[in-house]
């Protein structure tokens, strides 16, 4: 069996992801359409929250991906720090705008959902606040990559920032458990079946989550390819200038 480190070779990474991308994109689109259409058109209203429960099919997957995108960036950053594989640093860079957009979707749908349920668009609740800080970390991470000309230095510094920001990614996930205060309810998904949302909402939610995960993977593959090409382009231009 081939070693996973084979994919640290940019050429091999591009070849493999080029083959996977069409399948990933089609499956992501299919899952998103099925999950969202099922959730929007074919699920009942909740006895407490009425039709606003339909927002769950966007809000929960986006929030889940906002946190997990940062975790993926953390793993890629650690690989860069330990093994110095450029593809892993570029994959972390590629994932940041996708994670940031997922955070914006989670914050926006949360505010729109919160207004009729809580009577306010925003509250300085532990989960909401840690999510806002996570979003600011995403912005800082992307700004730091753009601000530093040398790719290796940028990868080093953003990796450290990523490690620091992981505290807020974890806090965003567990804030509700850590502090029993604030407006946000507990997790909608749990290994404890009693705490899960009802099956009628759960199944379309799972399909929607699958769609968001696959979309994230497809976008990270595509954007990492772009970052690899952009890096090669910068190297060739630098070489031309030297001649």
């Amino acid at each position, binding site marked *: 069996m081939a070693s996973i480190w084979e994919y640290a070779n940019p050429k091999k990474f591009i070849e493999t992801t080029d083959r996977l991308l069409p399948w990933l994109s089609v499956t992501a689109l299919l899952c998103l359409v099925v999950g969202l259409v099922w959730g929007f058109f074919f699920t009942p209203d909740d006895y407490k929250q009425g*039709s606003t429960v339909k927002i769950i099919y966007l809000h929960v997957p986006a929030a889940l991906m906002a946190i997990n995108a940062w975790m993926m960036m953390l793993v890629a950053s650690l690989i860069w720090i330990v093994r110095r594989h450029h593809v892993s640093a570029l994959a972390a860079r590629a994932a940041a705008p996708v994670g940031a957009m997922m955070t914006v979707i989670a914050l*926006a749908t949360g505010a*729109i959902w919160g207004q009729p349920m809580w009577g306010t668009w925003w509250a300085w609740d532990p989960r909401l606040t840690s999510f806002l800080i996570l979003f600011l970390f995403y912005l800082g991470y992307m700004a730091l990559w753009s601000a530093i000309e040398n790719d290796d230095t940028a990868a080093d510094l953003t990796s450290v920032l990523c490690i620091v920001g992981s505290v807020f990614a974890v806090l965003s996930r567990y804030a509700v458990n850590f502090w029993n205060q604030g407006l946000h309810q507990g997790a909608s998904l749990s290994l404890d079946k009693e705490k899960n949302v009802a099956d009628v909402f759960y199944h379309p939610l799972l399909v929607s989550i699958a769609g968001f995960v696959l*979309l994230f993977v497809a976008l990270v593959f595509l*954007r990492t390819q*772009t970052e690899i090409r952009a890096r090669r*382009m910068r190297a*060739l231009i630098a*070489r031309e200038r030297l001649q």
Partner: protein
Amino acid sequence: MMPDLGKYAQAVLSSYAVSIALLVVLVAMSVWRARKTRRELADIEQRVRRDG
């Protein structure tokens, strides 16, 4: 076909509109930048080969 969303129609519909719009923008920008970078790299590689 359209479910009755009652008094929360505006909240539900705006959530879907905002999220889908943001996802479309994200995908469109990723694809656009991927194509642009691929084209520019091909041009530079061709120039480097030609100029030795």
